[in-house]
C-alpha cells in the first residue's frame, strides 16, 4: 500500500469532511429566525432548541445526505457511460420514485408516507429496469441508457396524467416535488436515508479503482483484468438505491449529479479514487449551502417564502455549464 497516496487520500477526505461539518454548523445557525446555537444545544432556550433540532438540523442533515447521494452517483455514472454529461437521473429510478411520490400526494399521505411510497416504487423500478436492460446476463451501457430514458419518459407521462386529475393544492405540492425540495423530517427517516446512502457511497468508493479502468472501455477493462459486466451491475444497484432514496426524500433536485463531479475532477484530476468521495462531500456542501440560501434569501423581502433547493441548484448549474462549454470551446 503506497503510504504517500493513501495519506493524500485521507488528508483530502478528512479536510472535506471537516468543511462539510462546518457548512452544516453554519447552515443551522442561519435562517429566517435568529437563534443562539449554543443556547439551543444546551437546551436553555426551548424555542431555539425546537428550531434547531426539529427544523433546521434534520433538514440540513438531509441536504448533506442527498448531496452525497446525487453527486457521487453522478461521478460514477459519468465514468460508467464514459460521458461527462451523464446525470444520475438517466438511470430511470428517479422517474419511478417521482411517480411514487406523486401517487402518494394523490392519496393525501403525510411527508413520511410520501417518502415510504416513493422508496417502494423506487425499488420496484430498480427491479424492472434491471430485468428489461439485462441482455444475456450482461448489462451493456447503451441498453442501460436506453432503458433508463424510456422508463423515465413513461413515468413522467404518468406523472403528468395524475397531475391533471388532482386538485390545485395537490398539483402545487407536486411542483415542489418535481423541482426538488427539502423539508424537515423525523430522525428515523434521516437515519434510514443515511444508512442506504452511506452504504451505496462506501460501495462506490471501494470500487473507484475499478471504475477508473472501466472508463477506458469494456474491451480495455477486460484486458486489464476488470470484469466490466459485474462492475456495471454493482454500480447500477448501488447508484439506483442512493438515487431512489434521494428522490424519495427530496424530489428531483437537478444539476448536482451533473456538475459537482466536474468540480471534483477540476480540483483533483480524473482518478476516481479521489473524484468519487470528493464529489460526494462537495455535493453535500453544495446542497447544504443551496438549501440555506433558499431558506433565507427571500425571507426578508416582501415575498416571505422559501425557494425550493432545486431552483437554486438549477440557477447555479445552468450558468456553470455555459462557463464549462466556453472553456472547452477555447481549448479547441
Amino acid at each position: 500500500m503506497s503510504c504517500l497516496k493513501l495519506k493524500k487520500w485521507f488528508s483530502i477526505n478528512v479536510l472535506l469532511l471537516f468543511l462539510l461539518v462546518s457548512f452544516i454548523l453554519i447552515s443551522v445557525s442561519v435562517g429566517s429566525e435568529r437563534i443562539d446555537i449554543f443556547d439551543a444545544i444546551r437546551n436553555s432556550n426551548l424555542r431555539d432548541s425546537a428550531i434547531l433540532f426539529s427544523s433546521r438540523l434534520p433538514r440540513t442533515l438531509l441536504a448533506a445526505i442527498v448531496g452525497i447521494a446525487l453527486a457521487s452517483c453522478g461521478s460514477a455514472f459519468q465514468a460508467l457511460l464514459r460521458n461527462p454529461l451523464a446525470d444520475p437521473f438517466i438511470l430511470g429510478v428517479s422517474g419511478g420514485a417521482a411517480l411514487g411520490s406523486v401517487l402518494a400526494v394523490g392519496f393525501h399521505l403525510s411527508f413520511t408516507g410520501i417518502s415510504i411510497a416513493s422508496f417502494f416504487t423506487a425499488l420496484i423500478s430498480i427491479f424492472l429496469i434491471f430485468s428489461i436492460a439485462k441482455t444475456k446476463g450482461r448489462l451493456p451501457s447503451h441498453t442501460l441508457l436506453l432503458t433508463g430514458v424510456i422508463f423515465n419518459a413513461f413515468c413522467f407521462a404518468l406523472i403528468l396524467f395524475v397531475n391533471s386529475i388532482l386538485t390545485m393544492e395537490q398539483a402545487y405540492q407536486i411542483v415542489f416535488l418535481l423541482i426538488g425540495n427539502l423539508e424537515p423530517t423525523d430522525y428515523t427517516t434521516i437515519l434510514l436515508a443515511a444508512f442506504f446512502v452511506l452504504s451505496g457511497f462506501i460501495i462506490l468508493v471501494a470500487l473507484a479503482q475499478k471504475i477508473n479502468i472501466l472508463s477506458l472501455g469494456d474491451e480495455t477493462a477486460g484486458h486489464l483484468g476488470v470484469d466490466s459486466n459485474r462492475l456495471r451491475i454493482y454500480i447500477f444497484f448501488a447508484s439506483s438505491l442512493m438515487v431512489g432514496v434521494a428522490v424519495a426524500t427530496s424530489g428531483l433536485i437537478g444539476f448536482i449529479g451533473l456538475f459537482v463531479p466536474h468540480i471534483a475532477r477540476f480540483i483533483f484530476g480524473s482518478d476516481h479514487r479521489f473524484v468519487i468521495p470528493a464529489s460526494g462531500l462537495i455535493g453535500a456542501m453544495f446542497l447544504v449551502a443551496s438549501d440555506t440560501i433558499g431558506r433565507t434569501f427571500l425571507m426578508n423581502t416582501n415575498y416571505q417564502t422559501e425557494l425550493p433547493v432545486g431552483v437554486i441548484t438549477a440557477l447555479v448549474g445552468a450558468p456553470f455549464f455555459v462557463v464549462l462549454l466556453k472553456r472547452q470551446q477555447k481549448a479547441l
Partner: protein
Amino acid sequence: MIEANNISFAYDNNCYILREISFNVEKGEFVGILGPNGSGKTTLINIVSGILKPQQGKVFINGIELYSMRHKERARCIAVVPQESSIPFSFSSLEVVLMGRAPYLPFFGFETKEDILIAKRAMQEVNALQFEKREIKELSGGERQRVIVARALAQKPKILLLDEPTAFLDIKHEIELYRLIKNKNREDALTVMAAVHDINLASAFCDRILFLKSGRIAAYGTPHEVVRYAKIREVFDTDVYVGINDLTGAPYYVPYNGKY
C-alpha cells in the same frame, strides 16, 4: 505457450468469422497475423486475449485453459495493445500506464512505490517518460500508442497481443514501435502475437506469419515459407512482385502497378 484448438467463432450465431482455427505459438516467438479486411484478425486477437469466447474450441496458455483463469490472473499473463483507444477523461500519461498495474493491486489499493517504478521503467523503454505529467488527450497519435504500449508492458505480461498497433502511425513511429517490441521479444523472451496490416513489416520482424482468409488459416510458417507470390495471390487476391531483401535476407513484396 499459446495453443488454439479448433476455434470457431461467430458474433451472432449465424455468420462465422473464424472457422476451425488451430495453431501453436512457442514461447518467445513473434508471430504476425495477416489477412484481408474482414478475415478475422481482430476477432482472433480478442479470442486469444480471453475477452471473446468462441462457440467451439479452446485456447490453452501454457497448458491451462484460458477461460478457467480468473480475470486478474489472465491480465497478469496477457497484455493487449489495441488499434486505437479513446480515453474520455483527462488522465495523465503516467496515470494511464499505472492502470497497467491494476491486475496486481489489492481490492481498494493504491499503487506502491514498486508499481510506480515499474510504470516509469516501462515508459522509459518506449521512450515516453518525458510525457509522464502530460495529459493523454494532448499527445499525438504516435506518442499515445507508445504510452499504451508502456501500459501493456507495465502489466509484466508473458504474452503481448497487438491489434494493428501502427495503423494510424507514420513510418517513423511504426518502425520505432516494432523495433521496440522486437527488442522486448528478444531480451525478455516475451511471446508476441500481432495483427499486422503490412506484409513487409511482418516479414521483417516476425518469426512466423499466419495468413487468415475468410476465417480459416491459409498458411502458417516463416516469412520465407509464406511470403510468396502464389500465397499472396491466394490470400489477398492480387498480383505482387516478391523479392528477397539483400540486406536482411527477408522476403518483401512490391505492388504490381498493372502495366504488364
